[in-house]
């Protein structure tokens, strides 16, 4: 279990992590989600003692990371798959880890097999690795000590779709065995399917947390529809007469009403609909909305994308 309590990290005038508290429970995969620069990596570095917090603390199964005897045997850490010596071979990187942790050499082969790095790939120097191969090696490095807790920063980065599916299965199995998994991502679809719990962070603050369903329920807005018709003007008049707000997007409109209400209005106004969909906020919309301040794109663009999708 990872417990983060009131964690704050300030850099001069900039607050990278702002009073963050959450718990990543054993037996579950917890997704740590937020846009670039939201404070995910800083929070994770504080957990493993590479960065000192300004306030608050993070504990792993009740103790500070620095107090763990042989921490590699307790916590598997992957903060940056590229942070390996270019000139070492993949096998050598794992051998050094095994040596430090006091593990038998056979564990290196076991890990190479687990992450599907072939013996010839393992003999290559890291400078000749693709990002996906580095991620696999990083995951092997994190798992080699058979830890109880995994802390992975953007582990899916650079993996191909098959690799992402493989990692999903691996982490699921790991959590089912009672392990704690905390993995970060800036891509919702990467974590949506694997994480049991989600923690959404933006601008250094937690903006939402819980299961996917509780987050969606907490943000219910009373219905949104995306509609396109043969006579958008007439439909707009009819919808506005019913008191709904209408906003043109792409070739259609976004309406502040449930699709059934829009259908009724169209029937009454004798307008032929060519497209009618639920425009209600999905997890992605909520994610973008909640973290809007740190997004580099404006919300109008996001809506336009939502329609064309």
């Amino acid at each position, binding site marked *: 279990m990872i417990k983060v309590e009131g964690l704050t990290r300030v850099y001069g005038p900039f607050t990278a992590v702002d009073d963050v508290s959450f718990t990543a429970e054993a037996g579950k995969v917890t997704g740590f989600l937020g846009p670039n620069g939201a404070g995910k*990596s800083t929070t994770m*570095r504080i957990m*493993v*003692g*590479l*960065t*000192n917090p300004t306030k608050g603390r993070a504990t792993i199964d009740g103790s500070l*990371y*620095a107090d*763990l*005897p*042989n*921490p*590699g*045997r*307790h*916590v598997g*850490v992957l*903060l*940056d798959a*590229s*942070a*390996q*010596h*270019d*000139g*070492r071979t993949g096998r*050598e990187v794992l051998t*050094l*880890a095994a*040596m*430090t*942790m*006091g*593990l*038998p050499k*056979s*564990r290196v082969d*076991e890990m190479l*097999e*687990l*992450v*599907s790095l072939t013996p010839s790939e393992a003999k290559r*120097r890291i400078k000749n690795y693709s990002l996906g191969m580095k991620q696999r090696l990083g995951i092997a*490095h994190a*798992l080699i*000590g*058979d830890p109880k807790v995994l802390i992975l920063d953007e582990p899916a980065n650079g993996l191909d779709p*098959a690799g992402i*599916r*493989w990692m999903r*299965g*691996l982490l699921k*199995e*790991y959590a089912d*065995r009672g392990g704690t998994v905390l993995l970060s991502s800036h891509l919702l679809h990467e974590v949506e399917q694997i994480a049991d719990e989600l923690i959404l962070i933006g601008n250094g603050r937690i903006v939402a947390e819980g299961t996917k369903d509780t987050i969606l329920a907490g943000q219910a807005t009373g219905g949104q529809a995306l509609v396109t018709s043969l006579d958008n003007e007439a439909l707009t008049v009819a919808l506005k007469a019913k008191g709904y707000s209408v906003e043109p997007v792409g070739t259609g409109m976004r309406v502040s009403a449930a699709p059934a209400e829009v259908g009724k209005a169209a029937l009454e106004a004798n307008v032929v609909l060519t497209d009618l969909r639920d425009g209600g906020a999905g997890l992605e919309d909520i994610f973008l909305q909640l973290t809007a301040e740190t997004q580099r794109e404006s919300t109008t663009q996001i809506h336009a994308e939502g329609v064309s999708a």
Partner: protein
Amino acid sequence: MSAVSVAPSTPLPTATKVPFGRLVMVEWRKMTDTRAGRVMLMITGGLIALVAGVILLVTALSDMAALDAYNWMSALSFPVSLLVPVLAIMIVTQEWGQRTHMVTFTLEPSRLKVVFAKLVAVFVLGIVTMAVAVGVGALGTVIGGAIAGTDPNWNVTGEALAWTLLTQILYLLMGFGFAMLLLNTPAALVIYYGYTLILEASVFSALYFVFDWAQSLFPWISMQVAMMPFIAGDQMEAAGVAVEDGALGYARLFTSIALWVGLPLVLGTMRVLKSELK
């Protein structure tokens, strides 16, 4: 995709604190497991062999008298001082340059322990290199004598050898200190070579015998000048310079060592202990 399980096939040994000796072994291995590391060791060995080879060749081809042991020691000190501190610099700065420090310090959160393990590993390597140089020098004295047809001249006192080794060890520690302070390979190399090759080898030695103020200032700020009364007291006397090998001489020596070795080691260690690793 692989259907191999995450769980270890055989139970792993129970987790105990990482023993210091194991950290030293790991750091030792890290010096030799990359091509860059092996090339550095080969250059070090090669340069020692080259210096010895050239001296013997010149002895054989000219009718020059064979070098005595003292000259051999001076000649071989040069490649050692040129390269051993570079190993001490690289064992630190490479971690930051390649960003492997994030891995190193998550596997052993006690940064001081890692710093000591690195120092011990590179210190042992430095001592081995110096021992090789001493051996080559002794062999060269014998072979040179045989080539020139003269008896080898063993004119190195234990004291002179000790001072030479001490100098090399101080240079190693200095390189290590500046590496921790700067955490950057080129910057640490510039400072180290700037000190040994420019300040010590030319500026201090050139100005020392010329200016009075230099004779009163330099012994405090130059390790080499501060050591002169202990190593080359006779030559100094011959040059008409006062030889301070008493309490004042030691005070000067310790001050210069504190300045160039102690201070960077202390400040550098503080930087490594306190800094954010990313």
